[in-house]
């Protein structure tokens, strides 16, 4: 039925019925072997974002994969040695998602990582400026301070693990409640829109978290107002002890996007460049004011849900499924690509090889010295840092200062 508007409606722009975005990209089931549809999408995006990356960019990507992996194995070892308190949610085997989604962002873009994404806090805006104090990401010292629970942590260790943030550097402080930061991201993106900024917000969630009501409310809101929110779904096949098909009724989690008329892309979560391509396509679209996208990154959880779950996970997940899920280490996949495209020599590729190795069996020799030293600095800082004073516990229940 043709719509007619009252003066009141016409005066307020929003009531003009916006023609709904028509989904151009079909989704594919197994990203490992790109299908027709899959390529269509890449064609759709005139040139692939990766084509604009320099050889140095490629090596930086590899360096960041090493860093994310090294951070993970080092923490796993520390935890097993009983040196850390709290639970450790390993991002092992999922690093390409973090590196690939963050690599192309602008410093003033926002992100909201979850428990599985600890490296994201220091990977944000690290590209080419690991030691620049001005960068809009957390320092390795801050992140290590958080892991060790010290007063030098961003939230002075008032909550554990990934429950940190920094509004000055565009990181939403998150609660434990899954999918709970997506509406917050909508609010941040709404502010961008009002200010005419072309920044975006990347939210990270696991596939299981898409079953939360607030996921729906937030994505629906973002779609209605065409907010620059990119919903990254790390589909690692398991939500704690529950397999994906008991959380999501469709074959692909990306299908959730269809309910909102927004693009639902599927990326090979083991391929940092595929993740980069899909992300930048969605980011570019969002910067143009065309609204949100959902990107399902297919991957596999290497260990237990948390380190406390490693033993039980070995029982509730069949060994062959785990072996299969870990068979395409993102470092190996990317190295192969670099060698094939002559961006890395066989020899250099062979020099540092943590890929495929279980955390405990990796050594510092498996990683480039700049990566080892970078983290060492953070760890040493954290270990020396003081615990917060007990009295602090009573502060900041309310913001200090009256704000008016």
């Amino acid at each position: 039925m043709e719509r007619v508007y009252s003066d009141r409606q016409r005066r307020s722009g929003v009531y003009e019925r916006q023609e709904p975005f028509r989904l151009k990209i079909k989704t594919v089931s197994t990203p490992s072997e790109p299908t027709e549809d899959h390529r269509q999408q890449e064609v759709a995006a005139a040139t692939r974002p990766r084509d604009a990356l320099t050889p140095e960019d490629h090596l930086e990507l590899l360096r960041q994969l090493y860093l994310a992996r090294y951070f993970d194995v080092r923490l796993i070892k520390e935890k097993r040695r009983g040196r850390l308190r709290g639970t450790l949610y390993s991002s092992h085997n999922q690093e390409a998602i973090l590196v690939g989604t963050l690599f192309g962002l602008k410093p003033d873009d926002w992100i909201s990582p979850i428990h599985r994404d600890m490296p994201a806090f220091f990977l944000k805006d690290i590209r080419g400026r690991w030691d620049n104090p001005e960068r809009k990401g957390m320092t390795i010292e801050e992140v290590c301070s958080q892991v060790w629970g010290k007063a030098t942590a961003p939230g002075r260790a008032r909550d554990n693990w990934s429950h940190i943030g920094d509004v000055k550097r565009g990181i939403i402080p998150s609660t434990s409640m899954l999918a709970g930061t997506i509406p917050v991201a909508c609010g941040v993106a709404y502010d961008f829109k009002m200010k005419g900024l072309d920044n975006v917000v990347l939210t990270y969630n696991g596939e299981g978290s898409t079953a939360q009501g607030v996921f729906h409310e937030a994505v629906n809101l973002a779609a209605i107002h065409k907010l620059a929110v990119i919903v990254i779904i790390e589909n690692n096949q398991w939500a704690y002890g529950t397999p994906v098909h008991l959380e999501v009724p469709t074959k692909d989690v990306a299908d959730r996007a269809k309910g909102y008329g927004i693009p639902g892309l599927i990326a090979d979560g083991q391929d940092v460049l595929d993740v980069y391509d899909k992300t930048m396509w969605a980011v570019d679209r969002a910067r143009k004011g065309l609204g949100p996208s959902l990107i399902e990154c297919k991957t596999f959880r290497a260990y237990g849900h948390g380190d406390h779950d490693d033993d039980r996970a070995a029982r509730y997940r069949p060994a062959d499924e785990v072996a299969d899920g870990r068979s395409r280490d993102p470092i190996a996949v990317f190295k192969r690509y670099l060698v094939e495209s002559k961006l890395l020599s066989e020899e250099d590729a062979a020099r540092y090889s943590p890929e495929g190795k279980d955390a405990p069996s990796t050594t510092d020799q498996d990683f480039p010295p700049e990566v080892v030293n970078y983290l060492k600095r953070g760890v040493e800082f954290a270990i020396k840092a003081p615990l917060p004073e007990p009295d602090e516990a009573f502060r900041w229940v309310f913001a200090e200062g009256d704000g008016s």
Partner: protein
Amino acid sequence: MSVALSAPPIEKKNYLTALKDAIRFEMLRNPEMVCIGEDIGLLGGAFGVTEGLQEEFGPDRVIDAPISEAAIVGAAIGMALRGRPVMVEMQFIDFISCGFDQIVNNAATMAYRTAGKASVPIVIRGPSGGYGGGGPYHSQQNEAWFAHSPGLKVVCPSTPRDAYGLMISSLRDPNPVIFYEVKDLYRKREIEEEIPDDTIIPLGSASVVRPGSDITIISYGNPMHMCIKVAGMLADDGIEAELIDLRSLVPLDEDTIYRSVKKTGRVLVVNEASRTCGFAAEVIARVNENCFQYLDAPPLRVTRADTPVPWVQPLELAVLPSVEKVYEAALKVARF
């Protein structure tokens, strides 16, 4: 005649207009401020509290949100993290239960989790309370849930002037404030009053509505007006009641309470929420902790019964506080 020629008197405002004007005053004062809620724009709000705001400030600053309480609160938090004060309307405060997690776990704890580096200046307001035949889902007075959730401020005015002054303070507060509006008072003619635009009432300041020496009656919101009637009845009995309107529960103006109780030695607390773990219990516990030696009688409370608020009038009135119930309890305390 000549009087007519002098400056026209400020016209009196009802409770609803006072709220509307306070919100508009802040929207004008602070171009960063945003309002979001269901049907607050084109419609102007179910009760008209935001009437005209969207026409004046546009649909970007006065957002007609989808029926998604959790996302509404979450989005308000996001805007607040970007430095915007946000007014969030719950169409009825009863529906706040659908946005509960975002309020108690996200907004309330932001300052704490970030060690004060971030804060959430949002005001979540909505019509509350019974006496209107609204039934279990349009009559709630659920402030105790939030008073029990650290990091939230909780406000409930009983007069147009307080509504205006507390709304101004709430909208300027860097913390999340849950603002209970007494919908039964929205259009009550008897309580209309003149309100200078610059009226500000700080959170955490109770008002002594009536001085008295024999008994302290503490209340807030709608029952406050029953207490005023009761004070008159008590005066006829030769009992001088001191009436305290808390106005804000968190923060709580303890000094005013204790000063009065130490004077009268007798306390009655009256509120509309259900009884168990309601705010009346909290006031009584604190009075015990701070004024025990001064008490000449047991502190009693008049509250709603521990039931939902039923719909039809005979049932609704049976469970809610009334002048009779308050008078009876006051005599019990005074004559103990």
